[in-house]
């Protein structure tokens, strides 16, 4: 239910916003983040905002590793956006909890603001055309299957 309402509410707005964001970021030569949405065109992108001090974020990592392994071949790319103000803490965390997916840093929160992140963790599912199709606020272990079904559905789309 949540996923459908999220999609309806956010789809059009987000699609345009993401286009704008990807343009801005990829052309802004002084941008801190090296994030370029264009490079994920044709892939399904799961963009996850996390931090080392966030316990539910920690809980989502094993699941995201599993998703990356399982669906990487079908074009799923997971990118973890780390929000730690202190990069050393993030590195220490990743040593203890290694990941199978790409991590980028957004210590200043610029990318988080562009995506209007209102909860930690937040994950955005972006389809092969660059449109945001869903947003999940928080991570609930009980809803893992629901999250996975959504990914399968988006991967199946052309």
């Amino acid at each position: 239910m949540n996923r459908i309402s999220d999609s309806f509410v956010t789809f059009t707005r987000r699609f345009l916003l993401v286009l704008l964001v990807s343009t801005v970021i990829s052309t802004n030569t002084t941008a801190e983040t090296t994030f370029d949405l264009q490079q994920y065109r044709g892939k399904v992108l799961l963009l996850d905002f996390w931090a080392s001090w966030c316990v539910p974020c920690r809980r989502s990592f094993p699941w995201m590793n599993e998703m990356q392994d399982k669906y990487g071949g079908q074009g799923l790319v997971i990118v973890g956006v780390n929000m730690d103000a202190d990069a050393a803490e993030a590195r220490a965390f990743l040593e203890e909890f290694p990941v199978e997916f790409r991590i980028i840093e957004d210590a200043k929160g610029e990318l988080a603001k562009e995506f209007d992140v209102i909860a930690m963790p937040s994950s955005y599912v972006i389809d092969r055309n660059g449109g945001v199709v869903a947003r999940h606020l928080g991570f609930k272990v009980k809803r893992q299957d629901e999250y996975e079904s959504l990914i399968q559905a988006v991967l199946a789309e052309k």
Partner: protein
Amino acid sequence: MRIFSKAVFVFSLVIGAGTGCSSMGVEPWERDVLAKEEMQLLADPVEAGLDDHIYFSKEASSGGRGFGGGGCGCN
């Protein structure tokens, strides 16, 4: 009766201050310090309970302590 209306007034101020100040606070990703154990409002519940019991037994006041909020704000 006076006490009651005073209480309602103070509480409205408090609620107003809280929910009205929608611009006060931090972004969800800026809660690293607030997530620390030592920053929780009730960092040691056993000690707080022991103290409350001692003071309740030796003084005429009790409780009044509040609740949750703060912290990581996750999920």
